[in-house]
């Protein structure tokens, strides 16, 4: 029997179950491990008994680690699914969630927020979100109407926005000399360390409906890859599907970046990894990227906060340091 078949549903379930198991294991690991040593039995005890017996352990587990693990999962899921959508939409395997300039716009917003002396939450995250929405509007304006369907228009608009915003970011950094410089640099590296349940709810509220919508358009993404004329003759409303995917994904990525800064690489490598393992069918890849991306990000963030003896490193460093070699190994092995 060939691989796609009436068993698509079964395949979807198998992949989802496998990755869900990994995901839950990663969440558990992420809660159990950290700079303060708490063993597994203490975790279960705290879960059962609530905060009365050991308030310190309870606070660390459920008010510090859990939000951080959940936020990492959401960020990983959003960026992986975002990368997957942009790769399909632009029909370019090198696309990633930041390719259209959303993160750079967000960056400008965040830097302006930091320079204006806003607090991290909600001030800077709001200004970052405003920045990314401004870039999205600019992008839609630049490539609106018929020209959006020419795939290079969108890509080139994104490259130009990225270049321009990049220059602006450099300029803003170059005129900043005080302690705020450190905040800016840390924001730009992607930072999950300041998360609480509030961030988790904000990101989840945007992310979950977006993911469902993207899943329902996953078959349309498959058909889009056959070329736009063929997709059209197979009944796909190309302008509508493209616009919905573009806006929903941008929104998803914007909210992520505004909360945690542009965490790098996960959005490029996860869609590829999942495609190498599970094949190119988006109906399987969308859930695989959401679960796999979440798992990957939890583990990378876990390493980022436990590896250094003191403090922690930016999670973006780990995502690339592990992801790139892993990706190369899989790529070598997948060659027919």
């Amino acid at each position: 029997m060939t691989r796609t078949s009436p068993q698509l549903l079964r395949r979807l379930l198998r992949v989802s179950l496998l990755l869900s198991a990994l995901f839950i294991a990663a969440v558990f690991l992420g809660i159990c491990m950290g700079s303060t040593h708490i063993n597994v039995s203490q975790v279960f005890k705290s879960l059962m008994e609530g905060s009365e017996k050991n308030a310190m352990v309870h606070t660390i587990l459920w008010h510090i680690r859990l939000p951080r693990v959940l936020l990492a999962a959401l960020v990983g899921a959003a960026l992986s699914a975002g990368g997957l959508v942009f790769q399909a939409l632009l029909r370019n395997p090198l696309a990633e969630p930041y390719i259209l300039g959303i993160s750079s716009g967000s960056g400008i917003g965040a830097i302006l927020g930091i320079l204006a002396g806003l607090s991290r939450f909600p001030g800077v995250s709001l200004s970052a979100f405003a920045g990314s929405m401004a870039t999205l509007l600019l992008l839609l304006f630049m490539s609106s109407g018929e020209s959006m369907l020419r795939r290079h228009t969108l890509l080139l608009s994104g490259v130009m926005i990225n270049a321009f915003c990049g220059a602006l970011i450099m300029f803003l950094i170059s005129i900043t000399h005080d302690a705020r410089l450190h905040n800016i640099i840390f924001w730009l590296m992607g930072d999950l360390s300041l998360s609480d349940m509030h961030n988790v709810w904000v990101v989840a509220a945007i992310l979950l409906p977006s993911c469902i919508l993207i899943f329902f358009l996953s078959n349309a993404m498959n058909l889009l890859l056959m070329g736009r004329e063929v997709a059209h003759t197979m009944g796909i409303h190309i302008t509508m599907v493209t616009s919905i995917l573009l806006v929903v994904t941008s929104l998803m990525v914007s909210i992520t970046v505004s909360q945690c800064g542009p965490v790098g690489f996960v959005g490029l490598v996860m869609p590829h990894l999942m495609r190498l393992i599970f094949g190119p069918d988006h109906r399987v890849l969308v859930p695989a990227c959401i679960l796999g991306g979440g798992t990957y990000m939890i583990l990378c963030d876990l390493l980022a906060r436990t590896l250094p003896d003191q403090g922690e490193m930016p999670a973006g460093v780990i995502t690339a340091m592990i992801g790139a070699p892993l990706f190369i190994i899989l790529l070598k092995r997948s060659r027919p």
Partner: protein
Amino acid sequence: MTAAIEAIHLHYAYGEYPVLKDISFLVDREDFFIVIGPNGSGKTTLLKLIAAILTGQQGTLRLLGKPVQRYSRSEMAKTIALVPQVTTVDFPFSVTEMVLMGRSPHLGILGMERRADLEIAREAMAFTDVLYLADRKVGSLSGGELQRVSIARAICQQPRILLLDEPTAALDLGHQIKVMDLMEKLGEETRLTIVMVSHDVNLAAMYANRLLLLKKGEIVSQGSPDEVLTYPNLEAAYDCPLLVDQSPLGGFQRVTQVPRKLITECQAHHSKAQGS
């Protein structure tokens, strides 16, 4: 019974620039209809109008008796299928996966295929002789194989009218005949209407039962291959020296291009003969 395709006074322009001018023709059901003509004659535009990829034409265009603009997207997808000139797939889909996508118009939003759909896909692959490639990646196929997979994808869509845009243009002699034979067999077995755009007038002469010859958006001639492929028609359309005679296989016209140097030689010979 209504015609498969009915075009009456069809006009189409890209902005100011007219591409099709006053085109009227009929394609009967089960026809093997081939549109020929030089580059820029509007062949592909015509195909895109029929597929409703382009809209905004003037005049009437009906598919199976109903105007194109009255078709919904899903109705259209069940009525016509398109085989593009080249298929580029940048992502590693297998042949089966690609052919199965043809079932999409008949399935729900996620395109969850049932056992019957896989059966239809396998039949289509068997028909175009690509069943042995079922698990291969589309990207690893040769041009001829890929074209047959693309045709299987279109057959799998179970349309009433199959549109093909220069399906033999990038193929070698053997694969050209193979694709054309396939189309002929398909027409005979499934009673599908086939509309093809082609540059190859000789293949058109051998396979089509009706031809439409276009030049600069206007009809030069239409009818049976014998009626259309005459020296005056072809010279008017292609604007180059040609030789039109009967194929040694018998029964159809053969068109041969004549290189410039033979004509000069011929003229030189002629004037020498006159001089002496």
